[in-house]
């Protein structure tokens, strides 16, 4: 798929990735692991490397339980948070396995903090 690798697309795809993973996980009932795998494989097939990496990383946020991200609306917010964090931390710890997960965990906790402010 011919999509430009830029920050805007990274954030948009991150939001889509978190929302789709959250839906597959909680609404369709695939569970966190399979949902993440499905989104990651589709992303890796369709998108250029950096965007596929961003989609896979964002997908980790969608693996969150309902105690962390309770609704699709908050999943979209979580997607925006992780998209921004990915864009801001592109050069940090490149090539270390698990960097994406650390980014996602940070974003999930930021999202949880935002949710706790509004609830």
């Amino acid at each position, binding site marked *: 798929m011919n999509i430009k690798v830029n920050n805007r697309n990274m954030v948009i795809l991150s939001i889509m990735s978190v929302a789709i993973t959250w839906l597959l996980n909680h609404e369709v009932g695939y*569970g966190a692991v399979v949902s993440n*795998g499905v989104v990651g494989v589709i992303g890796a097939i369709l998108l250029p490397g950096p965007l596929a990496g961003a989609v*896979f990383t964002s997908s980790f946020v969608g693996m969150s339980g309902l105690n962390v991200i309770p609704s699709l609306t908050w999943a979209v917010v*979580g997607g925006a948070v992780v998209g921004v964090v990915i864009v801001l931390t592109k050069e940090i710890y490149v*090539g270390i*396995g*698990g960097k994406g997960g650390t*980014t996602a965990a940070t974003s999930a906790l930021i999202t949880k903090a935002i949710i706790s402010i509004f609830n």
Partner: protein
Amino acid sequence: MDNIAILIAGIIGSVGSYWISLYLNKGATMGAALMTLLSGLVFPNLPFIEPALGATLAVVSTTGAYAGMISKKNVPNIVEMVVIGVFVGTISILAMTTYSGVGGKLGTMAAISCLAWLGIKKVFKIGAVGKKEEEKA
């Protein structure tokens, strides 16, 4: 017995992901995503394992798959990946109940495993990292 199965799942996930990524040349994202999908589909449905343990093994294997995204520069061979897989299994056993439900927890555990191994390599001057340190000195 369950703990041994968890360690093996960690090794399978990390080696599988690393192998798909670097030896089949599919890239880190495809390697980890494919291994994650396979783990989620296969482990919970194995006939000789209890479903609860199968689900746990799928999660640990997934954690290993994230660790397998490490670059060849940092981990140049499969043997080192096996060691990281053991770290993944051990950390999974120790931290299974921590931060339950937070997306990214597994990836963070994978990062800790990779950084622990890279730290050991640096301290004991093992492999490429050790050689680089000696050259600098």
